């Protein structure tokens, strides 16, 4: 036991002292924020307003286009394809009237391409106006139209609330927040499994290639060596996690200082004009919205669960990575192909998670969060939707117990592969042989 402790200490200290640890710890959250908010910032500031001349034969469209962040409309007299530029416009939109039962057709002429966002904005407006025109042609009066629009376009007039019922308690649920937390925690666990799993594998490979393995196993049991490394790296991971949480907290507090509400409003407008193109902005908005209601989440449950799945998810996979590292010879290519059976379920976990976020009570989500190969990722994406409720207590219990059992099982099997592999040189080991080592009696 004492020897494992010495190994853990070395693994931890050498890694934490390493420059790459410091760098990745501080750069990762910065990069994330730069990506999310930088995207929104550039998106909001970077769009120029294009001036488009409208030439419509019916006169129905005049002054009905609403200017947006990306397009400003003008209705000059006698504009055509030869003179719109002289009149100070970048594009010409000609609308050909058809009969009253059909939508009008429109053509946009520009010298240079105006980009997808401009196109989307114009199409959006055309659709609305056409809709109104067709409604009016069928006898709906202008007044009726305006009053309908007033109701439908004002979000607050639509009084929609969703509630979660837990026994006697009725709580307003916040799907956006649950989604954001679920998505973020599932994704972080996914990254953690890969980063720290690979770190374990590299550590084992280093020991084998430097030929220190034989010196080590003449002092300690191979199992102690493997476990010491795995636990040491887990401690590094937890350290990094805590630093990240602190950093993210600081950064998100700072971000509201740097990013003015106007910018976000503009980003919001962009979203409306161009719904398919604005994922970054949506994410940024969601995070900022989430921040305001962030205290409504059940952190007392989410944080311990996250640490549990973070730790045991890592432990479940780490020994498998160690087993692969132990059989690899000089050729890193070999590691790639042997890693496939480990990486496949992790990637599968991410796919199930994306599904589970949309439908957190579906059977795929439930099974994915119980089977230990995918449960760390999938369960963490479901928990923010509510326990009990979306996730029943028994599901959480079964998931946790099966993950712990799975961890003991993979460690036990991997140790047998590791013990043989770490002293075996020059021989290319197949998956079949590894399986044979794992299941033979010792």
């Amino acid at each position, binding site marked *: 036991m004492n020897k494992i402790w010495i190994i853990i200490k070395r693994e931890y200290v050498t890694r934490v002292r390493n420059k790459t640890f410091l760098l990745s710890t501080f750069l990762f959250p910065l990069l994330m924020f730069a990506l999310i908010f930088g995207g929104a910032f550039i998106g909001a500031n970077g769009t120029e307003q294009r001036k488009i001349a409208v030439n419509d034969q019916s006169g129905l469209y005049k002054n009905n286009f609403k200017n947006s962040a990306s397009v400003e409309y003008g209705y000059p007299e006698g504009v055509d394809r030869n003179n719109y530029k002289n009149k100070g416009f970048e594009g010409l939109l000609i609308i050909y009237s058809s009969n009253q039962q059909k939508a009008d057709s429109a053509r946009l002429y520009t010298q240079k391409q105006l980009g997808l966002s401009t196109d989307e904005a114009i199409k959006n407006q055309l659709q609305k106006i056409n809709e109104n025109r067709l409604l009016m042609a069928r006898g709906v009066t202008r007044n009726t139209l305006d009053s309908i629009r007033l109701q439908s376009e004002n979000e607050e007039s639509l009084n929609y609330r969703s509630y979660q019922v837990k026994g006697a308690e009725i709580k307003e649920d916040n799907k956006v927040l649950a989604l954001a937390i679920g998505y973020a925690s599932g994704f972080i666990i996914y990254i953690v499994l890969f980063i720290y799993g690979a770190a374990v594998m590299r550590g084992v490979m280093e*020991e084998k290639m430097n030929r220190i393995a034989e010196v080590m196993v003449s002092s300690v049991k191979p199992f102690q060596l493997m476990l010491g490394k795995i636990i040491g790296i887990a401690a590094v991971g937890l350290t990094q996690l805590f630093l990240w949480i602190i950093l993210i907290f600081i950064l998100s507090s700072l971000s509201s200082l740097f990013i003015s509400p106007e910018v976000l409003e503009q980003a919001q407008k962009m979203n409306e004009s161009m719904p398919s193109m604005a994922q970054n902005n949506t994410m940024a908005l969601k995070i900022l919205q989430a921040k305001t209601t962030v205290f409504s989440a059940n952190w007392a449950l989410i944080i311990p669960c996250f640490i549990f799945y973070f730790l045991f998810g890592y432990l479940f996979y780490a020994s498998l990575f160690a087993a692969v590292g132990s059989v690899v010879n000089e050729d890193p290519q070999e590691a790639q192909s042997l890693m496939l059976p480990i990486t496949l379920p992790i990637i599968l976990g991410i796919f199930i998670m994306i599904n589970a976020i949309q439908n957190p009570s579906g059977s795929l989500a439930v099974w994915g969060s119980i089977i230990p190969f995918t449960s760390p990722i999938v369960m963490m994406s479901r928990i923010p939707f509510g326990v009990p409720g979306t996730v029943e207590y028994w599901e959480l219990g079964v998931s946790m117990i099966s993950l712990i059992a799975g961890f003991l099982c993979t460690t036990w099997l991997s140790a047998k592969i590791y013990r043989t592999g770490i002293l075996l040189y020059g021989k290319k080991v197949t998956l079949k042989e590894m399986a044979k080592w794992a299941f033979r009696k010792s």
Partner: protein
Amino acid sequence: MSTILEVQHLKKYFSSQKAVDDISFTIEKGSIFGLLGPNGAGKTTLIRMITGIFYPDSGNINLNGKKFNPVSDVIDIGYMPEERGLYKKMKVGEQAMYLAQLKGMSKQDAFGNVKEWFEKFEMQSWWNKKVDDLSKGMQQKLQFVITVLHEPKLVILDEPFSGLDPVNSNLIKDQIFNLAQKGTTIIFSTHRMEQVEEICDHIVLLNKGHKILDGTVRDIKQQYKQNIFTAEVDHLPAVLQHASFTIVKQNENNLTLKINEGYRANDVLLHFINQQSGIIAYHEILPSLNEIFIRLVEGTPTARQFETIIA
């Protein structure tokens, strides 16, 4: 002298080879023991069982008269494998401390011993260097120090001189004698016979997983002598031939003779004396271990064939 290590009917079969097949021997405390054998004879497997890395399939290992316990007895064993290995990115001093503590030493004891050995080998200035920055010979010295610094009772060295220049070889050789004098037992595994003759008291020769020779260097040489003598005379006798010997090699007045069956060394001398040849030198040539080694191993295929073992 008491026995430190006793190996009884040790067996280790791998799926395709009988790596060690019923080997027994004993090693006296404070002796330098040579474990010899061609490549693939089973030396490394045997050593790995003695160091507790492998469990034998059957047989016993007794250390200091008690059954060997791979967990608690590691403090008594120092092992330097043939494939040297150190953490390349770790600092020399930390590494020595780390490995000493893993053997079970306390931090204070480890520090004292590391300092003492570093002084002995003039390595104090290496303390904060990374292993990567050391030359190969320096790494070898460090590896030796790490092997012995926890004061093991049994030191196992697998090819300790490979890659060392003569100066450093002698340095380590002196330390080996030094340790043996203080009562440390040394197992020395190699296939370099001239070193064995120089260093070892007792040897065991392995081939194909079996023990084929066991004894002190002197006894073995006596056992495998072929009654060959050299004689140097001031002038050759008129009649050189005699029933007592055959001439193996002649270089003017230097003769290499093989004593024929039924005769003794003195019969040859008598012949020369009777022939009025003045004898300048006359002595027996004992076979070198190298010759014995080759004679015993020759005729068996050099590479071990893989076989299917049903065990």
